[in-house]
């Protein structure tokens, strides 16, 4: 009995917070837009009995999904989101790995402090931090003023409202998700392994490639997924820092939903997005499981 409750809790959680919302979104994506409140039809009316339910299901169709294929905005947005997510994941890895490495190499008494510094930004609102970046990156912003003062540039660079700003925003926001798993992998690594590698004829650099990198592989994979998965659907960063050229599916979704009030198409976009995300999520789970088995 206790076992059953233990198993039931996560499943109830999953059903209440994932499956039911997903079923609702799926249902809306199969509906038609309507000038009503809520702005779609049909509505399920159980009081009408069996006939009403039959009519309700008969009214659902895949029209909205079909519509997504007719306008190339959508698949371009999906593709561009994937591309931006992929590139920002690589950038975050390039920035995050050295930081995680330095943290793991730091004197043990410094490590909790450094860890704290990495987590610290989470204590302020994400939105405020993105707005702060607008202040830094704008034409009259801190960065341009600083570069002008240094004399590196003679007129302000346009960074805000470009893809560059989006990349900066994403790398900044998701950096902790990359650093933490890599740090935890590196910190667990036994230093004598590097000594053994050197003893067997490796230079410092080849010991890094042959020992450190493979041993932090699982951390790297976990970090990449933790950045890649939420970045695909990212909406706040591209809409605040990006410009008209920045095409991301999260932004499209938002516009369909709030500007066009076309809930059914917005829902269809969301369902497809979820299907795209399921693949990396499954891969991520498999990586975690493999790691647990290797340690077990």
């Amino acid at each position, binding site marked *: 009995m206790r076992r059953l409750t233990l198993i039931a809790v996560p499943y109830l959680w999953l059903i209440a917070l994932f499956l039911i919302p997903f079923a609702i979104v799926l249902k809306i994506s199969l509906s038609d837009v309507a000038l009503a409140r809520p702005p779609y039809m049909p509505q399920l009316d159980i009081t009408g009995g069996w006939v009403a339910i039959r009519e309700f299901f008969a009214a659902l169709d895949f029209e909205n999904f079909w519509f997504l294929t007719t306008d190339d905005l959508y698949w371009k947005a999906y593709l561009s989101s994937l591309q931006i997510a992929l590139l920002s994941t690589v950038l975050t890895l390039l920035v995050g790995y050295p930081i995680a490495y330095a943290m793991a190499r730091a004197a043990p008494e410094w490590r909790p402090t450094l860890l704290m510094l990495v987590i610290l930004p989470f204590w302020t609102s994400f939105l405020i931090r993105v707005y702060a970046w607008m202040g830094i990156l704008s034409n009259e912003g801190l960065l341009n003023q600083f570069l002008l003062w240094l004399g590196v540039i003679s007129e302000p660079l346009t960074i805000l409202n470009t893809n560059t700003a989006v990349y900066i925003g994403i790398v900044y926001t998701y950096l902790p998700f990359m650093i933490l798993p890599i740090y935890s992998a590196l910190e667990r690594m*036994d230093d*004598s*392994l590097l*000594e*053994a*590698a*050197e*003893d*067997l*004829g*490796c*230079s410092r650099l*080849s010991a890094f490639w*042959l*020992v450190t990198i*493979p*041993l932090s*592989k699982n951390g790297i994979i976990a970090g990449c997924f933790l950045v890649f998965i939420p970045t695909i659907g990212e909406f706040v960063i591209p809409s605040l820092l990006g410009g008209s050229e920045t095409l991301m599916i999260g932004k499209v979704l938002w516009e369909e939903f709030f500007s066009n009030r076309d809930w059914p198409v917005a829902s269809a976009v969301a369902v497809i997005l979820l299907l795209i995300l399921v693949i990396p999520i499954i891969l991520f789970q498999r990586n975690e499981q493999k790691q647990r088995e*290797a*340690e077990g």
Partner: protein
Amino acid sequence: MTQCAFAPWNDPEEKPLIQFRNVSKRFGDFTAIDDLTQDIFEKEFFALLGPSGCGKTTMMRMLAGFDAPTEGQILIAGQDMARVPPNKRAVNMMFQSYALFPHLTVWDNIAFGLKREGKDSETINARVDEMLRLTRLAKFAKRKPHQISGGQRQRVALARSLAKAPKLLLLDEPLGALDKKLRQDTQFELMDIQEKTGTTFVIVTHDQEEAMTVASRVAVMDEGRIVQVATPDQIYEAPNSVYVADFIGDVNIISGRAKTQGDKVAVLWAEAQPDILGTTSKSFSDGQEIHFAIRPEKVGISPDEPADAQNKIQGKVLDIAYLGNISTYHVELPTGHIIKAQTANTRRIARRQITWEDPVWLSWTDTAGVLLER
């Protein structure tokens, strides 16, 4: 025995392979190695013996190049090693923690060093297979380190350090995790390897029996210093201090005052007890503090008073430890001292003539023990 013939440390012409010259190593204000000077010769099997924390691993790490001496010089084959990084030294080390690469199979662990040398795959395959056979690991070649037992991991570490056939091999407590039988086999294997390859071994152990079995010379360490270096039999028969005598094997120590009697020295150790007579090449002044050390197997035990022994004391059997092949008698003297005497059990136990509470005589010749100043 080959050991008698092999004694390069006695040959002033011989060039040592390793030279420690006034080497000190400090961690903060803690001195791990204290002004150590020692030569180790080619083809030696040099054993470092000492209690935990006395600096054995630190000495090895300085030889391998992971730590630099705070003071002094280390020379290998006449070359100062100060600026030579670990990967440029013809030295391999077997780590006390094994330090196996967890992401590589047993096979790849052993092949790791060979691959770095850029050997062709055929040579590498042959060498790794040879090492696997030697350490009896062939069955586990495809496993990862976490899939094998502690003893097997230790053998992988050994195989990996042997694979490159280094000039100098450092073994830090290499056989600690092996069971007794396998440990003895591996000890002989090591000696065999050493004979075949001519590799110089420096081995750390806290198992004195192991040191005695494998070593050409044994160095006994205490708090960052080498107290005595000698061949196993010399260390055992002629320790230079109570510390060494006590550290290697079982020993009875009786302390007293020295008194010269002709060419012998008497130890005045208790009133109303006969003095202990011993021979020594050292000179003691009368009244000086002196320690008499004698191994249990050199103490005879008999129910009747022996007729012609230079030293004999009467006592009472307190305890008998039966070890199968030998028995150790703990004999209490009237003074309260407890002396251990060992005899080989050549007779069946039922026919033993001495038992608990029996009054017995202990006896030994005047050359059986050693006289020590400290």
